[in-house]
């Protein structure tokens, strides 16, 4: 089912930027997503998609760090789809990713709900860097290998008033992918310097990518995604994060801020123990990813909205399992708390996945439009 009507006509990234940077409390509540899977984008636009879920993007880079011509072709198709999707829905930006050719383990795929939903999964047990020897032998790409072809491809095509939102797959995510989660967790105690050395390599690449991307005139903001928590706590101790990860994140955020662009953080899980570090030391401008099971977006908004913007918030579980009426009711609850004070953009709590009901996604957009209208926007 194609989208019946856009959330709004025309893009206005400047208005979104003011919300992200909390420079205004007036104006309508905008919409934002970190990521939308290929399937829902295809449903919205009526165009074909080269991939079902966005995790499959990680497989575009081969195990040796190269990108095949087929993957490049798929990448181009995906950018065309993202462009059409942003235009059809009425987002103020178009999302893309940089090409950072870090070799990774291949993903596994699975099918759920009777084969209707395909998902790609990172190996959690075995990575390419199990020990110091593998680290030394690893073919780390140089910063010269970073390719921002995606920005150059999209920049001349984005709608007037729109900007590009660059999605960067975070260094802690990559650390887990390179070592395997369990290996990484154990080595964080037994061999912490190995994790530190891998993080340093990844930080150099992230810093260079973000610096170059944020300097691009078509880029409006960096959306940096790095899951750090489980449902109940951070994955490793807050002490570990403060010692090893926070300084790296600060360097990456600084690379973005050098060019005056917002640095938005997506992190799943209960990471409240790190919020002061993220706000004060790293200097994030906005926080994204909320699950009602962990903490509803409203309470996070009430705690932090005077210091950072709060983004998204509609639980993916609700978008995939709930009814349209439930989605509308929940959106209204969120908007009534987070809408009037500014510094808030609505969207899914995580991403619009290929198992979300498209009618629920449309209900979220429509209810927000109604709420904005009722409030004079």
């Amino acid at each position: 089912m194609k989208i019946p009507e856009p959330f709004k006509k025309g893009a206005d990234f400047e208005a979104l930027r003011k919300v992200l940077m909390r420079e205004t409390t007036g104006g309508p509540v905008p919409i934002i997503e970190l990521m939308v899977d290929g399937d829902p984008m295809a449903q919205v636009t009526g165009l074909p998609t080269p991939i079902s879920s966005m995790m499959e993007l990680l497989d575009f880079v081969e195990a040796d760090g190269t990108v095949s011509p087929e993957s490049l072709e798929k990448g181009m198709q995906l950018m065309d789809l993202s462009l059409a999707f942003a235009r059809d829905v009425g987002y103020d930006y178009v999302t893309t990713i940089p090409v950072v050719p870090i070799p990774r383990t291949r993903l596994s795929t699975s099918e759920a709900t009777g084969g209707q939903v395909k998902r790609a999964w990172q190996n959690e047990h075995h990575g390419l860097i199990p020990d110091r020897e593998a680290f030394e032998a690893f073919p780390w790409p140089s910063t010269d290998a970073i390719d921002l072809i995606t920005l150059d491809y999209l920049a001349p095509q984005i709608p007037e008033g729109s900007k590009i939102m660059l999605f960067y797959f975070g260094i802690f995510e990559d650390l887990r992918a390179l070592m395997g989660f369990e290996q990484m967790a154990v080595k964080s105690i037994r061999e912490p310097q190995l994790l530190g050395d891998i993080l340093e390599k990844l930080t150099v690449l992230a810093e260079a990518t973000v610096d170059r991307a944020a300097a691009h005139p078509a880029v409006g903001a960096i959306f940096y995604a790095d899951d750090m928590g489980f449902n109940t706590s951070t994955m490793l101790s807050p002490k570990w994060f403060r010692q090893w990860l926070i300084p790296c994140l600060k360097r990456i955020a600084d690379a973005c801020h050098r060019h005056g662009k917002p640095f938005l953080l997506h992190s799943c899980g209960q990471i409240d123990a790190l919020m002061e570090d993220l706000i004060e030391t790293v200097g994030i401008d906005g926080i994204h990813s909320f699950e009602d099971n962990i903490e509803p977006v409203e309470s996070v908004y009430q705690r932090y909205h005077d210091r950072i913007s709060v983004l998204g918030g509609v639980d993916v579980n609700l978008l995939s399992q709930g009814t349209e009426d439930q989605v509308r009711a929940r959106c209204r609850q969120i908007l009534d708390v987070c809408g009037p004070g500014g510094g808030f953009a609505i969207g899914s709590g995580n991403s619009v996945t290929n198992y979300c009901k498209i009618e629920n996604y449309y209900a979220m957009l429509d209810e927000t439009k109604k709420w904005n209208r009722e409030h004079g926007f």
Partner: protein
Amino acid sequence: MEELKKMVAEGRDDLVPDKVRALLDQGTDVEAVMKQALIPAMDQVGELFQSGEIFLPEMLVAAQAMKAGMAVLEPFIKGSGVKPLGRAVVGTMQGDMHDIGKNLVIMSLEGAGFEVVDLGMDVAPEAFVAAIQTHQPRIVGMSALLSSTMTAMKKTIQAIDDAGLRGQVKIMVGGAPVNREFAKEIGADFYGKDSVAGKVFATEAVQI
């Protein structure tokens, strides 16, 4: 015994095997080593994890140390008459290939003295049914990361019910999108917010 307990809690898998051997050489019986050192050490680690004083890596290295100790005890357990606390069958749902949570549950159950059959990832409802028929567990644990895969929990419980096995097992569920209401709705016996909560439930369930 206190020294061994401390070694396990601190994840010293390099020291634990020798300490276990020394205790056995001194005439300490296998059951005492398990019940007075290894299991209490893991209980202590679980409590610290639940209270937020330690985190996942510390739990993992403690479990590795416990395993190292159990490996020394294994040959002696067979002839000693020591029985496991109970048997559990655990797996992630069909379509789900995330198993950190499931592995933590296994680790916690083994740490409490359970014998655990790990069905792995992406487990079909009929595979749960077959495992219950084969292994006759008292506890069944199900894990899911995604909203799309947690729906398979309902189908799996239904399949267990259809096979006439529901009355003989206690079913516990967990995972990021799962909560108490959902567990109740699908007919599970327990929702655990973390692996330690699952262990506490399972331990009580086998003692009823």
